[in-house]
């Protein structure tokens, strides 16, 4: 039985619709989030991550009632990201049944510190969105993925989610080498994200050093035409 985590990632838009993006752009409608969550619950998934990808851009707070309803369907750990801008948001989300908060903006380090002080590091995931390889050194005007991850860890997050923007929705494999190189340099668990077309792609990232892997596509699409089918491999049927 495997200790590693495979995490379905559910992207929610401003209308509470479950969608999947390609390279942070083009969107495909997947279905109703509650139906999909119930299926994942029955399949006893390791963990679920829900991101409201419009909340930040729309300047909205998290939709607490909606998230509380989502959490009430989950008998597995649930993380949430999107529109978290103050400590009260964190308090309400955790009280409502969210285990971990996903923060992606590098400008939110003071908030990360404040949340870690009260709710602990295990309640925070720092999401580093990067282009190229996770192992790349810093370019002229941007932090390297390692530097960005380190800033989150120093501020108090307990996990780092490494998201490849280039690979988002492409379903042709994860940034295995880059994720492996970066995981080896971090003391916190790493969640690989971006590019998986199937659970085997996620296992490759884990074999390279990630502690967990997340994917939207791998558990929601099947075949070259991306037919929507919600699937998940049972824990006792995976390589250890």
């Amino acid at each position, binding site marked *: 039985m495997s200790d590693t985590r495979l995490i379905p990632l559910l992207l929610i838009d401003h209308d509470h619709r479950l969608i999947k993006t390609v390279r942070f752009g083009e969107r495909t409608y997947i279905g109703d989030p509650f139906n999909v969550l119930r299926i994942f619950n029955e399949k006893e998934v390791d*963990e679920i991550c829900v991101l409201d990808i419009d909340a930040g851009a729309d300047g909205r707070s998290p939709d607490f009632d909606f998230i509380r309803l989502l*959490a009430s369907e989950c*008998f597995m*750990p649930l993380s949430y990201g999107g529109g978290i801008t103050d400590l009260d948001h964190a308090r309400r989300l955790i009280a409502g049944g969210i285990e971990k908060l996903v923060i992606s903006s590098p400008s939110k380090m003071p908030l990360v510190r404040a949340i870690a002080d009260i*709710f602990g590091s295990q309640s925070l995931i720092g999401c580093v969105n990067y282009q190229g390889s996770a192992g790349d050194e810093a370019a002229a005007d941007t932090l390297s993925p390692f530097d960005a991850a380190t800033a989150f860890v120093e501020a108090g997050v307990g996990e780092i989610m490494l998201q490849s923007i280039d690979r988002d929705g492409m379903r042709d494999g994860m940034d295995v080498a880059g994720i492996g190189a970066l995981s080896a340099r971090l003391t916190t668990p790493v969640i690989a994200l971006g590019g998986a077309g199937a659970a085997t792609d996620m296992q490759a990232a884990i074999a390279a050093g990630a502690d967990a892997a997340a994917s939207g596509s791998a558990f929601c699409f099947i075949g070259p035409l991306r037919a929507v089918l919600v699937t998940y491999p049972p824990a006792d049927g995976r390589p250890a």
Partner: protein
Amino acid sequence: MQYDEIIIVDYDVGNAASVLNMFSYLGYPARLSAAPADVSRAARIILPGVGSFDAAMNNLRASRLDAAIVAAAASGAYVFGVCLGMQLLGRASEEGVTEGLGLIDGVSRRIMPTSPTVKVPNMGWRMADPCRAHWAAIADARYYFANSYHFCCDHDADIVATVDYDGAKTAIIATGRVTGAQFHPEKSHRHGFTLLTRFAGLSL
């Protein structure tokens, strides 16, 4: 069978809703309460916990829930601490400077990896290994862990189950009617159902 009402201590830094959610799903009577009078009179108490040791203890103290939990335990209530809630049952933690509830002899210490491949927090699904025969029912179950500190018991007899994370670490502790689990049963699917069902129906 008539079940006692389970009081889930609601002290503002816990994940009380998740615990209530699982009891509701299982069909046992449970409710959240932040009132010391409810807690001190309860027959079964769950102390949930997500957060840092000092923040949690300070909240318990400010609302006088600490004394209520200790009083309930002294009068024979079943008390079950979950994750941080379990660590609060001890005397202290390296995570903070305040005193814990002192219901189980031990302190929580930071997980210090013996190799760089061991990450902190311990985050994920692990098997719990029971050390006592009458807890065998929880063997071969996987539970969700999310902790940077682990409970070190003064007395080995208080360790009910361990988890192998860079060596054996405490997974479940129990002294009399006071029990604690380092993992999150309320987030461990049917494995958690089994454990919480056991707590709801425990008798002498």
